[in-house]
């Protein structure tokens, strides 16, 4: 009884001389090898080429600056209270005269620390932020650490650099009522 039509008829006939010397099999194998020279590669040379992780990937945290390069974070603590892993801590300070170009609001985060061992990359801080200051980058991972001292990320690692601005456009995200003039995407 035939169950499928994929069954192969096997024969017990004598092999030819060429077949005994594996010539057709070797040619066939070499053909497959040759074919793969021209096929698209399945792997990527990682540090040079990075996979696009999608627009909603949650990776490395970034503390945004606004259009004029001032820090958006006002140390309101909503990210820290929203954080289920309690990874975020901060110390607020009052902006003094002359610092208007550095900080957007009259209060700013003098210390802002995220414990990356605790962080579970859930993105609740980003959702809680009323000033649209903290984002989880969709294009960058938090690198592996080899030392416990590297685990707590301070403002030096989190605040975005002026020459390396982070941009993400997501039309599904609505603006918060406290910031009616801002759109989520910063160009």
């Amino acid at each position: 009884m035939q169950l499928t039509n994929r069954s192969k008829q096997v024969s017990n006939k004598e092999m030819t001389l060429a077949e005994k010397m594996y010539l057709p099999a070797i040619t066939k194998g070499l053909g497959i090898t040759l074919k793969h020279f021209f096929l698209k590669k399945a792997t990527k040379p990682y540090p040079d080429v990075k996979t696009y992780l999608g627009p909603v990937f949650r990776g490395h945290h970034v503390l945004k600056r606004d259009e004029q390069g001032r820090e958006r974070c006002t140390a309101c603590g909503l990210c820290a209270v929203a954080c289920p892993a309690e990874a975020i801590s901060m110390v607020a300070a009052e902006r003094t005269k002359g610092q208007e170009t550095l900080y957007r609001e009259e209060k700013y985060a003098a210390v802002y620390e995220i414990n990356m061992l605790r962080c579970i990359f859930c993105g609740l801080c980003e959702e809680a932020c009323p000033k649209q200051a903290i984002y989880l980058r969709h294009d960058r991972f938090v690198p592996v650490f080899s030392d416990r001292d590297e685990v707590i990320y301070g403002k030096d690692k989190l605040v975005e650099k002026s020459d390396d601005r982070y941009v993400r456009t997501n039309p599904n995200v609505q603006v918060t009522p406290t910031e009616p003039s801002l759109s989520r995407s910063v160009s």
Partner: protein
Amino acid sequence: MEDNKPQLVKVTVDGIEVEVEPGTTILQAARKIGPEVAPPAMCYYQPLKGSGGKCRACLVKVAAGSAKDPRPMPKLVASCITPVQDGMVVENTTSPQVLEARKGVVEFLLINHPLDCPVCDQAGECDLQNFAFEHGAAKTRYEEERRTFDKHDLGPYIQLHMTRCILCYRCVFTADQITNKRVHGVMNRGDHAEISTYIEKAIDNDFSGNVIDVCPVGALTDKTYRFKNRVWFSRPVDAHRDCPTCSGKVTLWYRGEEVIRVTARKNEWNEVNEFICNTCRFETKKTSDWVIEGPTKIARSSVITANKYRADTIKPDFVSRLAAANYKPIDDTRDTSQLSIQQLPPERFASSN
């Protein structure tokens, strides 16, 4: 003897009947029932004489004026200043008209109130924040410039942030109550109305710090606490000390082992129980100054309870509570003797040899 006893009057708030003394306001009668039916109050403050009737947050509908005259009152009334009558029927949250009116009140209060809660020190214990969260609309329709003022220092300890003020007059009544002279009041009219001390005269009374506690918003804030911490990161602890000027019963707000703020104790309506003096409030900020009584009780819904754990509180297990709630006794008279594991006769077992 019986004639001296005041006749109790019956009031119905949201379908719940309560007996109160004549002269009680609707708000007090509703508070007697419980926080579920009590109308919100932004300007009314029980310890302050004369407060109330300004913010219109506590508007309720009176469906029947009294037992003698059961006609409804034509307009919504401010429950904090309207005394009850026998047989009065009050609708608070059961009336859609009241809910709609409150939404409007929130919108009016927020017209000139800056939306700077992320910066404001009062956030988390702000009456206006709670009121807007519970009764207001989710979005603002206001597009015009908001009224702004410069920040003022009222003495060395208190900062007046007039931009945030909603003109509830609580601090004015407090100042009137603690001093004989008028030192603190409202200047100008209408949109320009402004809480102010008389010609920049600082309040130097021993009890001046209480205006911080009575302020429902972040207009009057503690300068020694300015931007120190958010309230939900600090841990409130009841404490007392021997104070020659006040009762000395306070709440200490801890960050780690450090006292970062001292406030008066508040009851469940967010009103201070006893006013405390400036020495207690601003100058004694060491644990050694105080006798600790224990953690302050905070409402479970408050953000102040966030991320605080107590080892000694045992929560009833959700699963067992659910099982207990769903338990139904079953009348099962069937013979269950065959259902248990039967002891087999010894000949059924193969002999080990």
